[in-house]
């Protein structure tokens, strides 16, 4: 499904990703763990096409399509979604309006018919209910004045409404209280499907108790340095990254 090979990414003059190779088949959920500043968010921005994250070498494909040749909105329409580590505030645009615009823009880009307003409303309300997001919150401008945890929940709501083929969750668990963590994890699990895959970036093993990953990758200094099953996350929690950092 997603294939990243020998990816080098520079931000300004600094090379942050230095030959990263990763493959996530359809139907699987992979986790990425790694120390602060290792390049995890850089990877998520490079995959989604943020300006200033320049791929100098390597290739990225999503279902065989060359992602690096596409604009951010084209990648989104192709089914790529990023739950941001730091979600942005969108003043003056109610969440409902925002979601409607996003759904319809994606449908249009894919040449599909746009959804009716009532249909969208129903879909958003249903998902919001599952995430315990109030109707009042949907009327407020997206993320403006929301708490850190509320913003993360809004990211998951957007993911559930947009139903992407491939989702990247960049530290969505950080800042969530215990109940919210379970709610978010339930949401993610509900999205698991044979034709969908996910990449979950996290610092904490706890999330992985709820979202059982098929594989865990260790990202250090811009490369994947180790890959294993869920047990790898448990080991990292005990031992930290010293072993990898010493080798890097």
């Amino acid at each position, binding site marked *: 499904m997603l294939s990243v090979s020998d990816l080098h990414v520079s931000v300004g003059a600094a090379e942050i990703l230095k030959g990263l190779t990763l493959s996530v088949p359809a139907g699987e959920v992979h986790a990425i763990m790694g120390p602060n500043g290792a390049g995890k968010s850089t990877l998520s921005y490079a995959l989604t096409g943020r300006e200033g994250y320049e791929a100098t070498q390597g290739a990225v494909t999503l279902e065989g399509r060359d992602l690096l040749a596409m604009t951010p909105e084209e990648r989104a329409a192709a089914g790529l979604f990023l739950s941001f580590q730091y979600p942005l505030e969108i003043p003056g645009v109610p969440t409902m309006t925002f979601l*409607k615009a996003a759904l319809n823009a994606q449908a249009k880009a894919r040449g599909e018919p746009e959804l009716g307003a009532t249909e969208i409303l129903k879909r958003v309300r249903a998902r919001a209910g599952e995430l315990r997001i109030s109707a009042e919150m949907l009327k407020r401008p997206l993320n403006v004045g929301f708490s850190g945890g509320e913003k993360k929940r809004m990211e998951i709501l957007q993911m559930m409404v947009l139903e992407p083929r491939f989702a990247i969750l960049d530290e969505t668990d950080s800042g969530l209280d215990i109940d919210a963590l379970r709610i978010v994890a339930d949401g993610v699990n509900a999205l698991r499907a044979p034709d969908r895959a996910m990449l979950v970036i996290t610092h904490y093993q706890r999330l992985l108790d709820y979202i059982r990953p098929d594989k865990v990758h260790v990202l250090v200094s811009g490369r994947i340095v180790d890959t294993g099953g869920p047990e790898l996350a448990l080991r990292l929690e005990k031992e930290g990254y010293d072993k990898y950092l010493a080798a890097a």
Partner: protein
Amino acid sequence: MAREGIDLSTVDAVRALEAGKYTAGFTTDIEQEFAPKGLSEDTVRFISAKKDEPQWMLDWRLEAFRRWQTMEEPSWAMVRYPPIDYQDATYYAAPKNAAKYKSLDEVDPEILETYKKLGIPLREQETLLGVAGAPRIAVDAVFDSVSVLTTFKKELAQAGVIFCSISEAVREHPDLVKKYLGSVVPTTDNFFATLNSAVFSDGSFVYVPQGVRCPMELSTYFRMNAQGSGQFERTLIIVDKGGHVSYLEGCTAPMREENQLHAAVVELVALEDAEIKYSTVQNWWPGDVDGKGGVYNFVTKRGDCRGARSRISWTQVETGSAITWKYPSCILRGDDSSGEFYSIAITNGRQQADTGSKMIHLGRNTKSRIISKGISAGRAQNTYRGLVSIHGKAANARNFTQCDSLLIGDKCGAHTIPYVEARNVSAKLEHEATTTKLSEDQLFYMRQRGIPEEEAVALLVNGFVREVLQQLPMEFAVEAQKLVAVSLEGSVG
């Protein structure tokens, strides 16, 4: 739901429009008649004679002209432009045979075509922009220096409402004109208003008698067409006791390389319990991206809440002009009267706007409200300049002012200059101001959700201006929203 409906229709409108196009920029090719170039007493006499004016009107103009010659152009506004050579312009331009067409059939087909292209209904069965189901709107069409046609006059007359060009009013309703013209903006008021008093060409006149609610929206469309000519709009609206009117004005001009001057004066008079709602969608040619050409829009607009409990509300959407210098104001003379000002001012490219409002509280329990939304993009400069003045006798006066600025890109500027004078301790004044920068990060976030950049900007801008757009009559709001989107195209990336 209705609000969201508006948002999405804007998004569609943005999609449908070509990038960076000023759609009103075409020229109409017709035979025109001009005053000799330059400005002198003879010019004033020429204009007055063309309009068949009575002696008192000519005398009034000449007095203003003599006064103007002693005045200096103001320089306090935050706008920069090379000196204007007032002798190098034409002060009167009119389509040949324009002695006001008596019916639609007489109007030059080229002119009809012009208004058709602009979506303005001159046939009484047509609606604004051809929108099915839109309410009927009476239109006064001003082409350069003359009003070419006013629609629905008969129907309005049945209700007792006078709606005609100011030129016609001078001839047909001299008592009303003599009584009210210059009573809100005196001929001595300021450099541009005095110039206008000397050479004003055309504009609209409205009189709504006591107790009458005007049965339809009134509107005037100003079109500047002739090259090298200025336009000197003069509008006078009087609403008698308990009357009500909603009036709209729209403005467009062709793309010209040289700058054109539009120096207008608008006076509103609201007597006891009367209400005037005045809306403007100003889309004069703003000049090209390098700042070549464009209209200098130097305008004096003032409303006088003369009677107790009267209300005047100004709503403006200012997207065009190279330079805008404009402060629609309210004199709250009557006790319990109220004034409102809602503004969206957009500057892009090299445009400059210095605009705001003055609320002068003279009567007791007077209320005013100012909501200003300034958007600046490109290399543009946008200044809000306002005055709230509470006089000694204005017990319990209230004002609420909110000035929000939105910056797109980092080469533009926004400035807020609110003046306050309070001479009565019972006054309650509130002021809020915010500045928001539309960041690349926000745009990336929206694009990551699949929303293309232009549409993302439109959504953000719409959210920013919604509160003011809601003040416009519905069919105008849709048009204004499209305009907002178009005027910001190419402002990012």
